[in-house]
C-alpha cells in the first residue's frame, strides 16, 4: 500500500513539473537541424570543461570497428579449416582462376528455378583459355562421378556452369591445379 502511495506521489510530481506556460513553449520550439538556426559558437568559458584522458586508448575503439577490407593472411601457419592461401606463383597453364577479394576459390552452387529444382555449379573469375579449362574440369568430373556431365561456357562473362552439385570436386581440382 505504501509503495503504491509513494508511486502516485512521484507521478503527481512529474505531472506538476510538466505543466508549461506559453512563453516556455515558444522557447522550446527551435529547429536546430539547420545551420542557420543554430546559435553561434561562443567562447570556451561558456561551455563545460573537458580534459583529454588519453589518445592512446583510441586503439581499443578502433579494434572494435569491423575492417572494410579483408586483412591479408599470414604467409606461414596452418588454418584449422581446409582453406589454403593462394599461391605466390601462378601455375603454368593456359588459363587462370583468380581468387575472390576474400581469398576464396570462386566456385558457387546456384539453384535454377525450374519445376524440379536444378543444381548448377558455377566457376567464375576465369582468365585465359576458358575452353581448355572446361575440358579439363569436365573430364575430371566424369572420371570421378562416372556420369556424363553437362556444361555451359559463357565466353563474354567468362564463367563455366556444370549441371549438378560438384562444388567440392571442382574446388578440390582447382586447389590441386594451383589456383
Amino acid at each position, binding site marked *: 500500500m505504501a509503495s503504491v502511495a509513494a508511486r502516485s506521489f512521484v507521478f503527481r510530481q512529474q505531472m506538476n513539473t510538466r505543466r508549461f506556460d506559453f512563453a516556455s513553449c515558444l522557447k522550446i520550439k527551435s529547429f536546430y537541424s539547420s545551420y542557420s538556426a543554430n546559435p553561434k559558437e561562443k567562447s570556451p568559458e561558456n561551455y563545460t570543461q573537458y580534459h583529454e584522458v588519453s589518445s592512446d586508448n583510441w586503439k581499443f575503439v578502433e579494434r572494435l570497428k*569491423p*575492417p*572494410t*577490407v*579483408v586483412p591479408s593472411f599470414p604467409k606461414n601457419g596452418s588454418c584449422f579449416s581446409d582453406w589454403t592461401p*593462394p599461391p605466390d606463383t*601462378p601455375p603454368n597453364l593456359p588459363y*587462370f582462376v*583468380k581468387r575472390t*577479394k*576474400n581469398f576464396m576459390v570462386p566456385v558457387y552452387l546456384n539453384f535454377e528455378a525450374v519445376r524440379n529444382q536444378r543444381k548448377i555449379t558455377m566457376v567464375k573469375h576465369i*582468365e585465359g583459355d576458358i575452353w581448355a579449362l572446361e575440358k579439363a574440369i569436365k573430364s575430371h568430373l566424369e572420371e570421378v562421378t562416372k556420369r556424363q556431365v553437362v556444361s555451359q561456357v559463357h565466353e*563474354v*562473362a*567468362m564463367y563455366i556452369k556444370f549441371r549438378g552439385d560438384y562444388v567440392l570436386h571442382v574446388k578440390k581440382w582447382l586447389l590441386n591445379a594451383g589456383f
Partner: protein
Amino acid sequence: MATKIINKTVTEFSLRITRCFFVPSKTIQTNATLFQERLETSITNVEEQLPTTIRPPLPIIHSRKLAFPPKFKAPRQVWVSNMDTVEEEKLGLIDLHPEVFAERPRVDIIHENVRWQQLYRHVSYANTKMRYEVRGGGKKPRQQKGSGRSRHGSIRSPIWRGGGIVHGPRSPTPYFYMLGFNTRLNGLRSTLSAKLAQDDLHIVDSLDIPTDDPSYLEKLVEERGWGPAVLFVDDNDIMPLNITAASDSYGHYNLMPVYGLNVYSMLKHHTLVLTLAAVERLEERLLFHLNRNDAASAGQKYRLDSV
C-alpha cells in the same frame, strides 16, 4: 584579347562543363585574381611568342604506388604528357592498375550502362484518351431492345471508331530505374579499359594551358592526333580559367570532374584525357569498391534503425 578577359567577369562566360555544376562566384573570382597575377609576369597574346616552359630534368613523374597491388597481372604503363605546349612533351611514365584499366571489356555491361543513362531520365509525354476522357459518350445511343441493331452503352467505348483507347500511353510515364551498383562500377572499368586499349586514353600532368585562346586548344588537339571530341577530366570541379575559356566556344571539348565520369560521356567523346590527380582519385575509388567487404549493408534499402 587578354585584357578583355580580365575586364569581363567569369560569370559572363557560359561555362560549358558537361552536366553544368553550380560554381559559386566567390571561387571563380579567386581563379580570376590568380590569372591576373600570372598575366603580369607572362605573355598571353597568341600572336606573340609563348613563354618557353622551364622544367626540371625529365622524367618528372617517375613511379606510382598502386593500391591493392596486382599479383599476376602486369600494370599498364602510360606516358604522361603536358598541356603547356602544342607539341607533345612526355614528362614521364606511370603505372595504371590493371583491375581498373586492363579489364576484359564487357560489351553487354557497357550497353546496359548506356541504356540506363539514356532511359532513367526519360519521361514519355505521349497520351491517349480513355473512354471517359473522350468528348461525348455519356448517353446510350439507342434503346437496348427493339431496333434490331447491336446493343451499346456509349459512342466512345473502345470498340467504336473515335472511341477511347484502352491500353494506350498515359502521360507522363517515367522510365526511371537504378542499375545495380556493381553493373555501373564494371561499366566504368570496361569503358576505361577499352579506351586505353584503343589508344584513346591520355594522361596529362594538369589542365593548365598558357593562353585562353580557343585556337591554342584546337591546334594542340590536332597536333597530337586526339579525336575530334575530347573529354578532359580533372579531380577538381573548378577548372583553370584558361582551359575553361578556351574550350567554351567548342561543343566537342568538354571539361568534367572525376565524380561526373560516366560511360555515355566516355563513349561520346573520342578521346579521354585524364590528369594525374584524376587517375589517383579514380583508381582509389574504384579499387575501394572492388575490395570492400561492407557493401552489403550499404546496398540495402534504408532502414529506420540503421546506424
